[in-house]
């Protein structure tokens, strides 16, 4: 039964694409890719100065604030889902693991590519030359770099059964699957470290990050909120995928979908609640209550109430009433909240004591290249899910996990 489903859907997907290539989505995506490639040439021939609005006072811009900070947080679905399924015994989420791992892998790969655009000497990043020989172990960036590199490898291995099934490489696939538990544990360890260290990067700059966002707990904030990002992204993404790739979805995936969304909503509500409390504790620990009355304080309250407390409430109601609409909007709100938080720490409140005229605003080319990265990610994601066994069990490997 499921065998026929799998094969049939696979063929349908491929045929649909051949029949209508010039869909609105493809045309827009194609345009973005072309512009992105042109800007890429510009970046690597004329330098960062031509393409970006970066300055000596604002050396980290959109590509760090969004591509790296948000990219890594939003790719957290991989470790949260695989940990829930394999380590914490929530086997009902098994069908969500593959899409989450795939998103995580592509997310981290995109982060790496973005970094190659951002650093001044990408050749030295690829070669990993000074990085290995001259280990700056006192740098949190060293830890982030090492963890991200290792985690990319872990995600690649976790993802590998998908193409291996597609290619029919039975033996290699068996080995890869046997590694699952070990890889999952590695993945959680590495994610814990680098998700939190992305926040801890800013511990060095208490004079630049606004006190409401600067906290000795910032590493914990980043780690806990990455779980929220992971859960929300899985919910959000599954609803998007439902629209776009319904024909590629097998029966087990479709049947598990609703319980998954409700389960994740419950988890997200809980973690958001904890996050809300520790954010308040952060203010209390620094005794920054008076700052809440300033414009930055109001902005902080918008983030904490509008994009932490509110989605927490919506997730709770959505779970109680089994209302997917509430859950979906809660997921979108918390994703915006995470993006807002990362941008607040790294860009918006960074150098808050400087006059607004000295503020960094990304150039259109930086924005365009960030959009280009996201578009490429979506295109590769689509390429994979319409061909490989992501949303359905491969007929030859059913019940073989």
């Amino acid at each position, binding site marked *: 039964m499921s065998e026929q489903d799998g094969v049939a859907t696979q063929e349908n997907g491929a045929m649909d694409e051949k029949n209508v290539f010039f869909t609105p989505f493809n045309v827009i995506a194609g345009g973005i890719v072309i512009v992105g490639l042109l800007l890429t040439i510009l970046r690597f021939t004329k330098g960062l100065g031509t393409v970006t609005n970066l300055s000596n006072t604002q050396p980290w811009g959109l590509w760090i604030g969004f591509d790296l900070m948000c990219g890594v947080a939003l790719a957290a679905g991989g470790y949260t889902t695989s940990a829930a399924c394999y380590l914490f015994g929530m086997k009902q989420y098994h069908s969500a693991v593959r899409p989450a791992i795939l998103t995580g892998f592509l997310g981290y790969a995109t982060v790496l590519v973005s970094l190659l655009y*951002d650093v001044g000497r990408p050749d030295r990043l690829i070669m990993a030359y000074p990085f290995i020989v001259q280990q*700056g172990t006192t740098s949190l960036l060293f830890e982030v770099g090492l963890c991200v590199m290792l985690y990319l490898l872990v995600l690649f291995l976790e993802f590998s059964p998908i193409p291996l099934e597609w290619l029919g490489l039975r033996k290699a696939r068996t080995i890869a699957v046997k590694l699952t538990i070990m890889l999952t544990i590695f993945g959680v360890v590495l994610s814990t470290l680098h998700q939190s260290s992305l926040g801890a990067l800013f511990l060095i700059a208490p004079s630049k990050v606004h006190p409401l966002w600067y906290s000795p707990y910032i590493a914990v904030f980043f780690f806990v909120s990455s779980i929220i990002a992971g859960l929300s992204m899985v919910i959000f993404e599954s609803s998007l995928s439902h629209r776009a790739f319904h024909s590629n979805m097998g029966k087990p995936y479709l049947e598990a979908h609703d319980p998954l969304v409700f389960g994740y909503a419950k988890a997200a509500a809980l973690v958001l609640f904890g996050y809300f409390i520790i954010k308040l504790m952060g203010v209390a620990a620094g005794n920054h209550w008076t700052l809440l009355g300033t414009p930055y304080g109001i902005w902080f309250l918008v983030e904490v109430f509008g994009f932490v407390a509110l989605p927490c409430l919506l997730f709770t109601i959505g779970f109680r009433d089994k209302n997917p609409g509430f859950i979906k909007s809660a997921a979108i709100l918390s994703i915006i909240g995470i993006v807002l938080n990362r941008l607040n720490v790294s860009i918006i409140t960074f150098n808050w004591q400087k006059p607004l005229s000295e503020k960094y605003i990304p150039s259109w080319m930086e924005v365009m290249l960030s959009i280009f990265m996201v578009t490429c990610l979506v295109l590769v994601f689509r390429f994979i899910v319409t061909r490989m066994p992501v949303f359905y069990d491969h007929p030859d490997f059913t019940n073989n996990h």
Partner: protein
Amino acid sequence: MAITRRKFLGWLGAVGVGTTSGKKNAHASAGKEFAGYPDSLGVLHDETRCVGCRSCEDACHRINNLPEPEKPFKDTSILNDKRRPDEDSYTVVNKYETSKGVRFRKIQCNHCLEPACASVCFVTAFSKQPSGAVTYDPSVCVGCRYCMIACPFEVPAYQYNDAFTPEVVKCTMCAPRLEKGELPGCVEVCPKEALTFGKRNDLIKIARQRISKDPDHYVDHIYGEKEMGGTSWMYVSDVPFEETGMREDLGNTPAPKLTSGALHVVPMVVALWPVFLTGMYGMTKRREKIAAVEKAHAVAKAVQEAETKAADQLLHAMETAKIQQENALIIAQAEKEKAVKAALTKTDTPKSEEDS
């Protein structure tokens, strides 16, 4: 000659990653203070003496082969702009309108005793030299610009417009000249002796002397003596330092201490998280196993109960059947006897009927 940063931080002991490498840092991380290299050098900038002539900028450009600016150094109109060291200049002089009139301040790398740039560089491109200079090695720099994020004095600049080999740019305290026993370029040319070069310890004494000689004039504070754990380049002034554009809220914590806590957690996470997660996995597995065993037990029990019940029923049914059989036999016997009797009586009756 040059002491590597790793070694330096070993002495420094402010950062505990040493626990992962297991080298000498391990004992040093127990909270030892680093008071700077003995006899390290520095410069004292007396803001009360600076007249904003820009000679230092000029000298710095010449010595370090930096590109000539559009306006000549003689042009002091540029002092009105709020400038900072950038990719074309290691040092700049800014003019400030203060409560005591116009003051000038020279800005350059302060050469921290425990530099933020060095502590955050993930390829150890920065080193604190025993001479006091914080130097930069462009041959390993990846260009992540974390040093620029970290520097509390906003000194390092980046060659954003160099497409292929951009570097971080910052004052070297003329480290190559120091090696030859020469003065830093800016100090050498200063016509007003606003810059005093010497051993850092001596400079602090000189600064204290100046302050104590003229306490009504000077602010009783040596900027850089303690700021961010101390710097090799220090300032004295007759106006609050804030008025000449300096941050007075930086605190005295050396930069590496700010991140040492977070770094201390790393080895613990690496060691204990797998234990915890394996434990979770084990608990899950165990729960599954117990559930399976309980299920098997329950099934066995149910089967047994069903079997017993069936056996009972069978036995009961058999007994009933036996009784019924016996009863039936009795009944049949009785009926048989009855029938026989009846038959016998029947054969007798005609007689009697006939009789009647």
